[in-house]
């Protein structure tokens, strides 16, 4: 019997686990293959081995993990929102891949891989290590941004918006990645629009602070808080 592509994930999982319906399993593989393949491929690439054989083995391993313990995962999964199984499957595929490579590397490490280091080594301090001029400068910049943000962002969603700003600029997450994080509650477009508005506000503050500092007649009481454009 054919499975309609509109069948919910919840119902599909139920059909897969409850009956030996080959059509249900074919639909399961059809729907999730791309997702599992891309997660395995990317994670494997981080470990330096994205060969066809390895990736295919790990994809198969992920599917088999779904069936472990007599389909416990499929049967007990709590669908908190429509995409929750998708998120879960991604984490499962990434974990299967990481576990595989960890085990491979730990075996390698145990096999007389230790070599002595000859010569005298005097490691130089990294350019961006803690306490370096670069890191101090960055720390100052972070504090400056923090104070701009405190002035720019107000209202009920202040904490969330501030978090979005830092995730975007400091952690380097994309708007799409931020939108799926727990507690954000915005679409990708919503995050993009919010970042654009916050960036404009912060840029404006930075520009204003600079012009206030540059002006010899500037008055301390006319600092950032009295900016007219906000």
């Amino acid at each position, binding site marked *: 019997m054919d499975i309609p592509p509109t069948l919910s994930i919840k119902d599909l999982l139920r059909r897969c686990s409850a009956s*030996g319906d080959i059509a249900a399993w074919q639909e399961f593989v059809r729907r999730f293959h791309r997702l599992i393949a891309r997660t395995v491929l990317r*994670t494997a690439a981080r470990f330096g081995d*994205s060969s066809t054989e390895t990736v295919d083995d790990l994809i198969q391993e992920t599917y088999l993990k779904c069936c472990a313990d007599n389909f416990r995962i499929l049967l007990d999964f709590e669908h908190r929102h429509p995409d929750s199984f998708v998120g879960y499957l991604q984490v499962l595929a990434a974990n299967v891949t990481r576990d595989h490579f960890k085990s491979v590397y730990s075996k390698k490490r145990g096999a007389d891989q230790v070599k002595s280091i000859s010569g005298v080594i005097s490691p130089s301090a990294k350019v961006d290590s803690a306490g370096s001029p670069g890191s101090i400068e960055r720390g100052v910049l972070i504090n400056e941004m923090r104070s701009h943000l405190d002035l720019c962002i107000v209202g009920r969603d202040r904490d969330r918006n*501030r978090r979005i700003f*830092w995730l975007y600029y400091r952690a380097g997450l994309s708007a799409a990645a931020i939108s*799926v994080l727990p507690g954000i509650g915005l679409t990708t477009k919503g995050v993009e629009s919010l970042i654009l508005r916050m960036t404009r506000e912060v840029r*404006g503050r930075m520009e204003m602070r600079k012009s206030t500092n540059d002006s010899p007649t500037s008055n301390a009481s006319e600092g950032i808080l009295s900016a007219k454009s906000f």
Partner: protein
Amino acid sequence: MQAKGFCLQSRFRKGEADLEPHLDADQIDVLLRSAWGLNAETLSEPDPFELSGLGLHEDAHAHLMRCESCQERVLEQKKAMERLALLRPNAPVARSPECPPEDVWMEVAAGIARRSSEIYLSHAVECDHCGQMLSRAAEDFVEELTPQEEVLIANLPSSTLNWQTRLANQLRSTRTATADRPHAIGVWFSSIAASLTPSRLAFAAALAGIMVLGLRDYSLSRHLSSQSLQATADVQLLEQDVLQQKAQIADLTAKLNSPLASSAQMAPRQGEEPSIASVVLESGLTRSAGEMKRLSVPAGTELVRITLHIPDSPGGVMREELLNFDRRKIWSQELEASAAETKSRSLSIFIPAYLLKPDDYLIKLSRESQDRFDEVATYSFRVPR
């Protein structure tokens, strides 16, 4: 309402009202998004095709090339964007003891919500190491494939219909194999039974009897010693429970009496399993006094709620600092007591469970007064192995 646009000032500068309009915030954003002007100090000639592709009208960039004021403004904005780009660390950052396990970032990036997700995210925006971990996990979960990935996935044998049909059959048969297991076990038992003779059976029974007697004796002595340990632990737990229940009763009573207590606040949050360990602490207990409160943190616990009884009323901003045995600060937060807490002279704090490894801990509580914090009380507890 919060200003949505960047520049609320008139698009005509003072004394220029008769001239054409200056660039607005949207147009400047288009310019900043383009590859226009690679060097922040100078502006190169923009590519009209690129800019019109991004939605910037020809008139606007014609204006820009004539207007020094707009050029200056765009340069300033460009420099600001370059400074914003410096917020991102440009090298891998080492992990600190406060960082949660790396596995959590995959769950967070995949949108799997847990009670502690908020805490993890708050940590990630402050910690460069965890920010990088989260960013990396998020990159792995991005839906769009690069052209190279498209080719790689399309060329996988597992992307063929044949492979997928074979896998679907294999997955289906996993179930069948599980269902057939009792039958297989039955066959195994009958083959064992066939090989047993009466003499072999008698010898096996005698051996089994000796083993059972030995095991019984061993388990009896072990049971007695564990019972004595259990009794001590039970007494401690009971004391802890009594204090805890007192605090909860005080808390609930205060909430019920409070006219501000809304039904929404009292309702449990749907879909979130409770995974909080709790302990109630009295101030002034020290390690040397031998009265250290024990807090067990079972596996899977996400948060620990610690209720601190305060000698005087917990008014104003309070700062809580958690120190480990080596007196190293591993957590701190500032908070204000609710009305109920003020009434019951207690303060509840939540700490991520992953921070509390087996060790002895000290909590320093201080109160803000005139730009400094004065110590109010100290508390100690132990997280046993």
